[in-house]
């Protein structure tokens, strides 16, 4: 239950973009920058990198929209489309980034899936406190497939059908990944309850 998946915030925007891309593109950026930046941040775990990924995403979207015929733009489902571009660019950036000097390990001796998130997002961390920081770390340590599914579904609040579309997987698979990801997070948190850090 919890947070209801939110519907597309601007259902008329594709039609406006089809009529006047330059006049409506700023609205697209304003509407989706939180999703695009937030998604990028959860994948690359670094604010500067995430901002670049978000910029690249919107630039790529602009040139794609500029090249599409108007009917195609008018029929677009912008949110999953932008989320997919973001995810692809964020994954590419992770691949290009040099790996951490020594492999990070969690309590079970399993290497973490990501570069050290501890050093990331200093401003946010300072503001929102330790629990948030810990959740960011745990999320970053999830296997990539689980992490992406959990972020799209529970951080960004996309409906399962859209999460499936973004990840290019069947809805059933995506649900399984979300549930497993959430279970891992809960187990991890429960373990820390018993053994305070």
């Amino acid at each position: 239950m919890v947070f209801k998946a939110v519907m597309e915030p601007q259902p008329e925007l594709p039609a406006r973009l089809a009529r006047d891309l330059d006049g409506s593109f700023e609205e697209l950026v304003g509407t989706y920058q939180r999703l695009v930046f937030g998604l990028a941040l959860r994948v690359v775990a670094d604010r500067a990198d995430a901002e670049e990924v978000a910029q690249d995403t919107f630039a790529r979207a602009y040139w794609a929209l500029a090249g599409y015929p108007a009917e195609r733009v008018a029929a677009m489902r912008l949110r999953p489309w932008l989320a997919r571009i973001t995810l692809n660019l964020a994954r590419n950036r992770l691949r290009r980034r040099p790996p951490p000097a020594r492999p990070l390990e969690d309590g079970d001796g399993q290497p973490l899936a990501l570069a050290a998130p501890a050093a990331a997002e200093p401003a946010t961390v300072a503001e929102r406190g330790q629990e948030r920081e810990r959740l960011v770390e745990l999320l970053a340590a999830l296997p990539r497939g689980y992490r992406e599914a959990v972020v799209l579904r529970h951080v960004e609040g996309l409906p399962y059908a859209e999460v499936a579309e973004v990840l290019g997987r069947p809805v059933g698979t995506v649900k399984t990944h979300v549930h497993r990801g959430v279970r891992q997070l809960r187990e991890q948190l429960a373990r820390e309850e018993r053994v305070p850090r």
Partner: protein
Amino acid sequence: MNRYHGNDDPDDGWRELAEGLHGLRAEPPPTLAPAVLERVGLADAFVTVDGPAGPLLVAYNGRGISATAPGTDEAGFAERFQDRFGRPLRPAGRPPARLVAQVERVLAPGRRGAEPRYDLRGTSEFERAVLAKAREIPRGQVRPYAWVAGELGRPAAVRAVGAALGRNPVPVLIPCHRVVGSDGRLTGYAWGVPYKRALLAAEGADPDELERLAHRGTRFFGSDTTHIYCYPTCAHARRVADRHLMTFRDAAQATGAGYRPCRVCRPA
């Protein structure tokens, strides 16, 4: 750390976790949207560079350099920019090194390399052709409006050429100042004739000499050894020794004397 105490009560713990996850939604930095709009060419930033004849304001976006203006009147520049292009113009926080290097390369004598890209949206096809032709004129040289019109295959369009150059959105960088009156006089410049003279002088041309030639009615130079005639600022004309230098008031006079037009500056 006792907030996630609900491991004995799945619903409670799950609610806490879900709230926590949703709370991880991140606010985008305020710099994101302006940077995106600038990159796709829906907004512009400007920097001030050292121009050949004083400071030069240079506006740009992700598509290229979109406008220039001599001087330091930033507010006036932004206002005219908004009026003409309908886009906001803001000062660049940190001048992009690559752009500044490209501008310096255009302005530096003798240096060659990639020219910057220009964003010439809002100009007509004819205007872009005129500007492209102006860019072919080498530093320190001048050609008349009629030459540009002739080169474009529209010899009657002299006034239209003048109007197109007057609307050059990136003066100084696209050298409309190298185009002069058909009688050779340094006429007509959006930023004033003194500034045009200063730009030409900075490139090594001699504005006073150009005006003197125009006043005397000298349109072309020729060499009595090669029997080729040129525009006076053509590099070939400048290599002719004084004792071999001939002057002509028009192409007919040169042709009548048995001279042919230079293939580089193409005076006819």
